[in-house]
């Protein structure tokens, strides 16, 4: 079952080094030499959708367990946003949608005027790896970028001899 939640204050988690009084990174107390880090959550502006996939059926979650998993104090929503959800939608189960809306204190269903992606768009973007609102790839390419047709016709782009920058994750 998919649960969609409107998210206007998404949390972006990062592991940041813990600094001592002198502003230097502290080392982990386990003696491994690793830098001690702590989780911090930046606030991301913009309208996004949080997609929850909950297993149901044999071995899956009951409606009350879904409520705890999503809306409980140790549940997932508080890890995804600084604010209550803008809305909740559960196309496969309106009773679950209404229950979550009541527990989370938000509209049941996508309200008129929502300026972010729809649940369908969000689900598609998750699969395609495109963030809703980003321009299409064609708009990111320079206008003089050679087309496949131009390459097929024999166009040879100028090759620059340059060292490739090392890419690190």
């Amino acid at each position, binding site marked *: 079952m998919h649960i969609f939640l409107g998210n206007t204050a998404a949390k972006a988690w990062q*592991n940041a080094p813990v600094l001592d009084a002198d502003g230097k990174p502290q080392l982990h107390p386990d003696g491994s030499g690793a830098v001690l880090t702590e989780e911090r959550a930046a606030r991301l502006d913009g309208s*996004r959708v*949080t997609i929850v996939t909950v*297993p149901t*059926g*044999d071995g899956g979650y009951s409606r009350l367990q879904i409520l705890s998993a999503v809306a*409980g104090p140790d549940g997932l929503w508080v890890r*995804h946003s600084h604010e209550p959800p803008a809305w909740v939608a559960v196309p496969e189960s309106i009773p679950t949608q209404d229950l979550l809306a009541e527990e989370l204190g938000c509209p049941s269903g996508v309200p008129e005027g929502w300026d972010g992606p729809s649940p369908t768009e969000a689900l598609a973007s998750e699969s395609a790896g495109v963030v*809703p609102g980003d321009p299409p790839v064609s708009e990111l390419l320079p206008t003089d970028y050679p087309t496949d047709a131009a390459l097929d016709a024999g166009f040879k782009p100028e090759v620059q001899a340059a060292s490739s920058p090392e890419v690190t994750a």
Partner: protein
Amino acid sequence: MKVNVGNDAQARQMGGDIVGVTGTTTSSPTGTTASDTGKAWTSNQWAGHVIVMAGVFGVIVSNTSTVATVDRWYNPATPGGAAGSTPASGVYQILGGGAPAIFMGLTADSGAANATDTTLPSEITTAGGGLIRKICAYAHTTGVASYTLTAVFTANGTDSLPVTVAKMGIFTSLLSGQMLFETLLSAPATFNTSGDQLTVTESVTN
């Protein structure tokens, strides 16, 4: 924390590894094995990968030159439920990448998580209990470099109570498989009686 096995699995899943293989079993699969005597695999080269046969799949936990051993066969629609049917002999595919880590286990062990751990120390495995390893709810916010896995555990009459759990692990299998994450809970939690419930959320930051 992501343990060393988790680093290896993440690299394999996101970076590529062998793209996979297909073939036909040369004997009837069992509840945990699929054999193809026409192959000459390297020992354990497929560990962590998924094998698909006739509407079910298994997570390969080890392999010899001709036999892939899986944890069990899964029904794709309900991977957290009862085992799927053992497939008849036929075509199989071993997929590239690896099995997703979507199962959470608990332990009363309160020792620090260790990057070299491959199993969760003293994991609760009481058959029929409510505190055994189970499938998680997965959540992700579009465009954000993190995701969460959440499990809700409810103690039942089969569990050995009271028990105070202190640590969790994230696995690729409901039964065995690889442990990719091992994390101390923010605070130990005690199950005293049947019906006590605990929600555990693991945040994974890329």
